[in-house]
């Protein structure tokens, strides 16, 4: 049983607006997935549908190869959607006890998970007295209560201060290191780049990329160069067949190869042409640049 979630042609329309447009992807055990997209691209609606709170207009999804119906499956899932939702008049422990009843897990887990997120000392305080960071950590404890097979997080660091963000990220990293499958929706690209192995890119509800993060970011990279004689450098670069095109970016010349090109080889061939380099660096596009290219291509 490797497929945790299979989504086929999932669509959601709100009136004449198509919020999610024929999404198809599958989530396999052990990977960390990111859902990327600007605000309003349909991330939360997609998660809402697979979590049983938004009714799909058409298409469908199945959890755990269809062996469980949705609400049974959700007992094996941990999810945090947008803001943490708990009963304000209940204490942290009472809230988690309610969740343990719903998920049918033993109450002994409550203290364990509260300790994991540093809230054990506040377990008997009411939820409404918590700060946003504490609320978010309680939500994580609640999502982990059943030792889920997949953890779903929607913008988990939204609105937190830097310390809060760091705390939440550390917890996510710890969980990912244990081999738990994670599905993380975010518009913060570095967040996704840091923790995800696979990524689903959405724009206006449409799926524009689904696959490995490395496949998205690793093209052949590019070279950043400078030399004592810039004109000679440009001429020399354009004579190298592996270089597809050249760009001038401020002080540097950027050279884009279309096949893998070894940096030592490039340096040698330029030296052979009598170029004296003052700067040479091989660079890769960040996920952010890739994402912008991808979304711009779609708009064009």
């Amino acid at each position, binding site marked *: 049983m490797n497929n945790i979630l299979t989504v086929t042609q999932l669509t959601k329309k709100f009136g004449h607006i198509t919020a999610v447009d024929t999404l198809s992807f599958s989530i396999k055990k052990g990977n960390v997935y990111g859902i990327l997209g600007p605000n309003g691209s349909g991330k939360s609606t997609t998660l*809402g549908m697979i*979590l*049983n*709170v*938004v*009714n799909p207009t058409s298409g469908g999804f199945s959890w755990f190869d269809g062996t469980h119906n*949705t*609400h*049974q*499956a*959700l*007992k094996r*899932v941990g*999810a945090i*959607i947008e*803001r943490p*939702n*708990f*009963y*304000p*008049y*209940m*204490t942290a422990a*009472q809230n988690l*006890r*309610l*969740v343990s*009843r*719903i*998920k*049918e897990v033993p109450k002994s887990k409550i203290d364990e998970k509260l300790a994991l997120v540093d809230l054990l000392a506040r377990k008997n305080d009411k939820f409404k007295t918590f700060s946003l960071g504490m609320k978010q950590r309680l939500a994580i404890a*609640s999502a982990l209560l059943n030792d889920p097979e997949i953890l779903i997080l929607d913008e988990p660091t939204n609105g937190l201060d830097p310390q809060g963000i760091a705390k939440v990220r550390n917890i996510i990293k710890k969980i990912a290191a244990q081999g738990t499958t994670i599905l993380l929706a975010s518009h913060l690209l570095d967040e996704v780049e840091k923790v995800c192995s696979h990524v689903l890119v959405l724009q206006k509800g449409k799926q524009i990329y689904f696959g490995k993060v490395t496949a998205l970011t690793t093209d052949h990279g590019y070279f950043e160069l400078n030399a004592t004689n810039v004109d000679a450098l440009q001429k020399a670069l354009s004579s190298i067949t592996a270089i597809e095109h050249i760009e001038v970016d401020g002080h540097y010349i950027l050279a884009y190869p279309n096949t893998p090109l070894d940096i030592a080889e490039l340096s040698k061939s330029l030296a052979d042409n009598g170029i004296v380099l003052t700067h040479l660096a091989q660079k890769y596009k960040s996920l952010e640049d890739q994402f912008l290219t991808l979304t711009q291509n779609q708009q064009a």
Partner: protein
Amino acid sequence: MKRLFLIEFDKLRANRSSRILIGAYFILLTSIALIAAIKFDIGPIKFHLAEQGIFNFPYIWHFNAFIGAWFKIFLAVVIVSMTANEYSNKTLKQNLIDGLSKREFLHSKWLMIFALAAISTLFIFVVSLILGLIYSNYTEVSIILKDFEYLLAYFIKHIAFFGFCLFLGTAIKRSAFALGFLGVWQMFEGICYGLLKWKSPEWLDAEQVFRLFPLNAMGNLIHEPFSRLSAVRNLANQVEIDLLKNTSVQFWDIIIVLVWSFIFYSLTYRLLKRRDL
């Protein structure tokens, strides 16, 4: 089922205002006993309400079921606010994400309705039994056991009323507006009755149509008990008013109210199922 009950019980128990309202409700139910203390002693006129026969078996079942039902608005506030809060705190959404199905959510609420109605009925039973044993002129078992249908009617009336409240809380999502709507609905039924009386064609019996309205049907389950009192009858005879109407629990009223309960249950489920959260 135990799981669903405990889920709702946990929610209710932790809520301070609900605890206070439920506590106040049962204190008020018990306060029916205070009627026994009503005494006038003005020279030649001696009047002790408890000795006018209101606590006689089996009449007491009817009397207390009628009086006790007034207080149900306290529990209605609890049910409406607990339901509306599930929306405003977005905890309904969280419950579903945690793995409760919409059907299970609704059943946990309905189990609470059944429990509240059952406890309330049991309470009325105990209070009436004690009052009756103290004040009733007849305490033979065969007389005590008569007219138990008023307790059944009391139970069903509460189920239907709470079901209506749960539906309104779900539909309107704001407790104050939902309770306000309950009042508006009561007026709406009154206006409809007036219109029916005034304008309905001859082949249509206004009384019979009005009998189908939910709040009126709930009211019809337990008619006012006062015209059964001998003191009231004597007075009515003197001024030549005929009070000989049937005040017993009617089978068809029970059916109408049960059908409404089912309609409220189904409508609430439809709302839950269709709405995106």
